[in-house]
Structures are given as C-alpha cells and as structure tokens.
C-alpha cells in the first residue's frame, strides 16, 4: 500500500499529519530539537502566551500520581514580546504548523496577543486557552460559561483570519454546551480536554503537596475520561476536534480518532519520553498501512 494520507484540515489550515503536541508540554519547540526533527509533526502548540511575562506558581508545581501527573505550573511564560523576539523565529523556520496558545486575565489580554500576532507570517493558528485550572486569571471563567466563551471567541474572530481553536475544560457538567457556543461564535476547531482539576495531600504532613494546593491531572489516568468527552462532544458539533488526554501510544491516538477527533495532541507523554510524539506519528502511519486505511479522515468518529 502507498503511504496513507494523514493530512487534516482545521479551518483554513491544513496539517500535514494529525499529530500535534500540547501546550505546556513542549516548551517553545526547540527544547526537543536535539531528539528529532520537530518539523515532522503536524503542528506545535506553544506554551501559553500572555501579554506580559508570568512567573508561575510557587513550587512544588508537579507531582506524579498513579498513571498521572498533577501540575500547577501557573502559566509561567516569557510574555508576548520575548516570545516574538526569542521563541517564534525558531518555530517559524520549521515545516510545521505553529499554533500559539493564548491565555489571559480578561478579554483584553487575549485580544492583545491575537491582534499582535494576527498578521505574523510565522503563526498559523491560535489556540484560545479558556480552561487553565491553575490560575484565577487562566481563562477558566470563559471556559465554564457558554455566554462568556461565545463573547470572547466572537471578539477574537473579528481580529484574525487565522485558524482559531478553542481549548475546552473538562471540568464542566456538559462540555457540549461550551463547544456549541464557541462553534457558533466562529471557532474553527475545538481542542479537548485540558487537565482535570485535582489535588494531592501528603499523609505525613497532612498538607497539600502542590504549592498552588490544587492542580490539573493529565497522563494515562485521564485517557478514558477524555475519550468519553470527545465521543460525546463530537456528536454535537461539526467543527473538527483536536483530541488529547493521556495519549501515550499510537494505539491511544487511533482510539481518539475513532472517538471523533480529527487530530490528536500528545501532552504528558512528551515529558516522559522526549521522542513520544514522533513515535506516535510513526505508529499511526504504520497502523493505517496495516489496516489499509488510505486516508485517516475515513475513520474519524467511526466508533459512533
């Protein structure tokens, strides 16, 4: 069989393959460039960018839990100006989609980052983070209310022709409501799920382990929860879904596609194995060849 067609269209952006890397787990891309050509990926989603630099939360910021990782990094990032000067040139030189994750304390923060990068040739899309569980100003208030999610996405839609992806929180009663709201407001795609809110307590001291007290859970532990949410939301929206949540192997990624994801995003696995995303991409291609799937698009949502 010839090489399968793994390309995916998200808004006006064509990804050469469906493997992305999740915001906050891949730095600004160059951190992984010693291990493989990161330009082979379908896209790189940057660390969340806010207008000004953010120092992040007090440590400890991460703790491993059974099959999972709790984190409360606190959106530490270099800020928009340093991102453009120091981080974006490397990303722009790669043959892959550059998706800037945008976070902020209010609508103006999102507006500032998107407006500033709206015509930047090195940026292909924006992932609007309305789901960070670890800082008050992490956009979660937009991610838990359909009305405010819709207003924010609608406002940003007017600022850019580039692809907009709304990153949804799983910490709501029904993520479909938010998904429908952002779709109606002009979001080209949805990425889900962000981390599940959780915490760890040290039995010896009786105190919370994380400096931020609560954190977001990621890793294999959340995979069945994420699969279910994607399965459910994909029945309700037409826009493509970028599926994530504990993807560690090519088989995991394929499961997300069957659940309804048009593309997948590798997160915590990058922290365990810096070559994880490459191995998953290679494995997805092998899977398609073995199953004689000529176009990955043919199996999206086929678990329904």
């Amino acid at each position, binding site marked *: 069989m010839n090489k399968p067609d793994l390309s995916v269209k998200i808004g006006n952006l064509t990804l050469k393959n469906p493997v992305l890397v999740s915001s906050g787990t891949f730095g600004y891309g160059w*951190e992984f460039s010693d291990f493989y050509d990161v330009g082979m990926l379908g896209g790189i989603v940057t660390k969340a960018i806010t207008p000004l630099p953010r120092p992040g939360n007090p440590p400890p910021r991460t703790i491993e839990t059974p099959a999972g*990782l709790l984190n409360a990094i606190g959106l530490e990032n270099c800020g928009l100006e340093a991102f453009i000067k120091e981080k974006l040139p490397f990303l722009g030189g790669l043959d892959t989609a550059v998706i800037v994750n945008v976070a902020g304390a209010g609508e103006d923060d999102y507006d500032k980052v998107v407006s500033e990068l709206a015509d930047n040739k090195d940026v292909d899309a924006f992932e609007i983070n309305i789901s960070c569980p670890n800082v008050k100003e992490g956009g979660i208030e937009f991610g838990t209310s359909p009305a405010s999610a819709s207003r924010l996405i609608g406002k940003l839609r007017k600022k850019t022709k580039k692809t907009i992806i709304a990153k949804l929180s799983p910490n709501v009663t029904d993520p479909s409501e938010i998904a429908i709201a952002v779709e109606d407001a002009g979001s080209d795609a949805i990425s889900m799920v962000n981390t599940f809110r959780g915490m760890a307590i040290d039995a010896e001291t009786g105190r919370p382990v994380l400096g931020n007290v609560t954190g977001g859970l990621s890793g294999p532990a959340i995979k069945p929860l994420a699969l279910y949410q994607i399965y459910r939301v994909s029945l309700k929206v037409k826009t493509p879904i970028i599926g994530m949540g504990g993807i560690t192997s090519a088989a995991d990624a394929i499961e997300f596609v069957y659940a309804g994801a048009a593309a997948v995003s590798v997160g915590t696995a990058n*922290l365990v194995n810096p070559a994880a995303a490459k191995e998953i991409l290679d494995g997805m291609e092998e899977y398609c060849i073995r199953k004689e799937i000529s176009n990955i698009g043919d199996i999206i949502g086929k678990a329904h």
Partner: protein
Amino acid sequence: MKYLKKAKLIENTVITDDCRRLKLECPEIAAEAAPGQFVQVRTWDENGPLLSRPISIAGVSNDRKHIELWVRIVGKGTKAICSAGVGDEVTLTGPLGNGFKRPEAGELIYTAGGSLGAAPLRFFAQRFCGCGDLKCVCGAATACDMSIFDDPVIKSTGAVLTTDDGTMGKKGFVTDALNELLDEKAPDRIIACGPHAMLKAVAAIAAERRIKCEVSLDTYMSCGIGACMGCAVPMSAEYGKPYAHACTDGPVFDSKMIDWEAF
C-alpha cells in the same frame, strides 16, 4: 547536545540495603557529561511508573564509554531502576542541566556531600583531580550508610567522613566537619550536594563566611529539559527573576541566588 538512548546495564552493585551503584554503557552521554549534570532514567513502558527519574551522574569511565549512577530506592520509580538486571536496557536522556564550574589553577575547593549527594562531587573529584586543590567531607546518618563512600575516587581525596550518630568516622553533621576545615583555612569555593536541610545549612555557613558556594539541588522534576517549567526554584532578588528551573538553570546554583526561606 542531549541524547535519548537505550543504555545497557553493565553492573548493578548493592551499596547498602537501599542504594545501588549502576554502570551503564552509553558512549554519547559519557563523552559529553560534566560533573553536576544529570540524566533522566527510565526502565519501564506504559505499565510502569510514569515520569523518568532524574539522577546525578557519579562518574564516567576512563574510556568515556560508561556512566556511573548511584541510586537510592525511595519510591516505585527508583525501585524499578534498581531492580534492573545486568544486560537490561535502560532508557537515558542526557546529559542534562548545568554542572559545577571548572576549577581554576590553584583554586582551593571544599566539597561537602551528604549521603548519596556525594555522587556528583565524586564525579567532580574524578574529572578535576589535579586541577585545583580539593578537600572533601562526606557525611552519612549512620555507619550503615558509610559504604556509599567506600569508593576509590572518594578514598583518593582523603575525605573526612562523618556520621550523625558517631557509629563511624567523626561524630556530627557534615557541616561540623566543614566548619572545622573552614576554621583552618578559607577556600576559594565550597561545592555541596545532599539533603535539603544540609544544603541550606552549608549555604548559611558560606554566606556568613563570605565564601563562594555552589549547591546541586534536588526538586520534583518532570521533563528535565526545560519544557514543562515544573521544577521551579525560588530565587533571591539578586537573581532578577522570581523562579529558576532546576533542570536547565541548575541543578547547580550559586547558593546565594536561592531564596532559602521560600525553598
């Protein structure tokens, strides 16, 4: 350059009940490793623990083909690593982080190692033997832990050995022995690695005596390569930023740059 490699385990030696000395074949990492750097270690697939475990490099073989790691079993990750058999493949990422500064000609350096914290200092002594003038103190809780220091490189330094309970070597903390050396003569630099409380005490001693001091820190760490920003270390105002990251800014830091009250 950082490498992601499958390394063959050549030796797995029992040092104490809960400590092992591992020799791994990995020429790429061995060729570039510097004292104070670390590797991320993993022996499991998706059914094991999750994150790789950051371990200091304790030395490199003379032919630069092997690295040596000293590992204490503290949880399921380190237990799995220490259970690996000779011939097994161990996944390594490294060398990572920034090590200790190279000694300058004639520089007098005191090293203070607490328990397995002696590992990167051992690598320092091995690599820089002959450059500078090295005096070492190594401390352990009890005599049971002393076999950690039963090592040709550490012996060759003539290290002063201490135990907290006096069951072997000098009775007292490693900081007591360090203070005795400092009373005799002030060095150009102190380098230290060990438990948090010990490093805090060494940093305070160095600050009081106005001696330059480098400490190698241990924090919760996830990626080890600067991607996740998880291993934050609170820094003093002089550093210019509220946090540094142990994996890429450290794990070796100038002790006066750390905000020890917050850390």
